[in-house]
């Protein structure tokens, strides 16, 4: 668990340093998803990193950024969006991203995000 926390902290640093390039920042935020995390707090922390990257993307660039992500990254992002929506910050942005991502990756992506295994 501590290992995972360390990795999340590293990811956080990487994202912050890349914020000028939103696509790269998002890709960095989506690396190494903590599937093995056992505590809710760890997962929330992980989601916060992704929220940071998401908020850094200007609204008109959202489709372009989604285009640049791979299929696997789409799935990971959708899982993070659902986790992040459990909180109360940035919900408007997250919902917008959810809509855009659904348009890009389809309902199949949502199905994969809702599976009980490999939750983020």
């Amino acid at each position, binding site marked *: 668990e501590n290992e995972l926390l360390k990795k999340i902290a590293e990811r956080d640093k990487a994202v912050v340093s890349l914020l000028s390039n939103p696509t790269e920042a998002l890709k960095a935020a989506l690396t190494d998803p903590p599937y093995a995390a056992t505590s809710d707090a760890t997962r929330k922390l992980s989601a916060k990193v992704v929220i940071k990257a998401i908020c850094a993307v200007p609204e008109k660039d959202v489709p372009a950024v989604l285009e640049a992500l791979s299929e696997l990254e789409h799935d990971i992002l959708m899982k993070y969006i659902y986790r992040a929506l459990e909180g109360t910050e940035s919900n408007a942005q997250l919902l917008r991203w959810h809509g855009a991502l659904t348009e890009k990756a*389809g*309902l*199949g*992506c949502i*199905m*994969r995000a809702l*599976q*009980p*295994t*490999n939750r983020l």
Partner: protein
Amino acid sequence: MSFESADGFRLLKLDDTTKRPLAISCHAWNKDGTLLAFSPMNHEIHIVKYADGVLSPVEVLRAHEQKVMGIDWAPGSDRIVSCSEDRNAYVWNRDSDGWKPTLVILQFQRSATYVKWSNSEKKFAVASGAKCVAICYYEEENNWWVSKIIEGFDSTVLTLAWHQSDCVLAAGSSDGSVQLFSAACKGVDKKPAPLFGPEVSLAKLGIKLCEIKTGSWVVDMAFSPSGSVLAYVTHDSCVHFITVIPAGKSEGILPTQERVQTIRTSDLPHRRILFLSNDRVVVAGHDCIPAIFSCTQDTWSSQGKLDDSKSKKQSASTSARSAAFRKFEMAMPQSAGEGDAGPIDTLPTRHQNCITGLATCAAW
């Protein structure tokens, strides 16, 4: 029920009382495509004759006490096997009077979910909600069907697929696992060839050969006609392919997680998968539109959908289908709908609800 053929033919069978399309839980064609057995989501099995685009009822088979979950028609021996929520299976033999059932006691504690004749039609396998699979064969001396139980699942077994050699059975379950078992029965099958090499013995019935874990329910699976590829669809909208016997070789490799090719689709989950040929597969499900995948040089990719979701008057595009096969689908009707006019909000696709069954009719 509705089906499509090359010229966009479509047929609907209406329920007599409500005048709405019947929901079909399972169906099976006979060898030459003249007879169809299906169950309208209840305990009955309806046999209908198909000729020149018209369905005419032949017989209604009543033996099960609860919903019929699976029907399979053995093309060679012209027998039907059906399994039901009442935990039983019946083998139906046709004689001069019609179809006569023979009860098969499966020893299940829970409902049967799926049934399939083996390729030799000497035995059949039944999957169950009791986390097990039964392989049944006929014992001449005692004049009854024996059922052998194979356990090893954590949840309901949803689907089965016989390998072409009949000595390996693949089973998929809602615990997310795809498992391969040895399935050769002494006295019924010849001595099984070493499909996976000399190390892996297929002599004893029910030995687990391998297991692949996916993250979600394995809803349907099928072996390719040559038995070289196993394909399965899971509830997370993915289609998976694993080569069991590499091209050009006679010995297979036991499937492992790493060698599975997974295609993530953007559609709703599929319910059924069917091989049209060794390198072409059709899947259909909650999206009400069948989709095709084909294989070029060991890699599978999507070839698009069979229904272009435009107005119902257009006939389905057939370029993706081989002309020798016709594909038949069964659909569940939409539950909403008032009065006799039928469903008010109709989907733009040909099927109005989830596709629950796919079958090829080779004789056409």
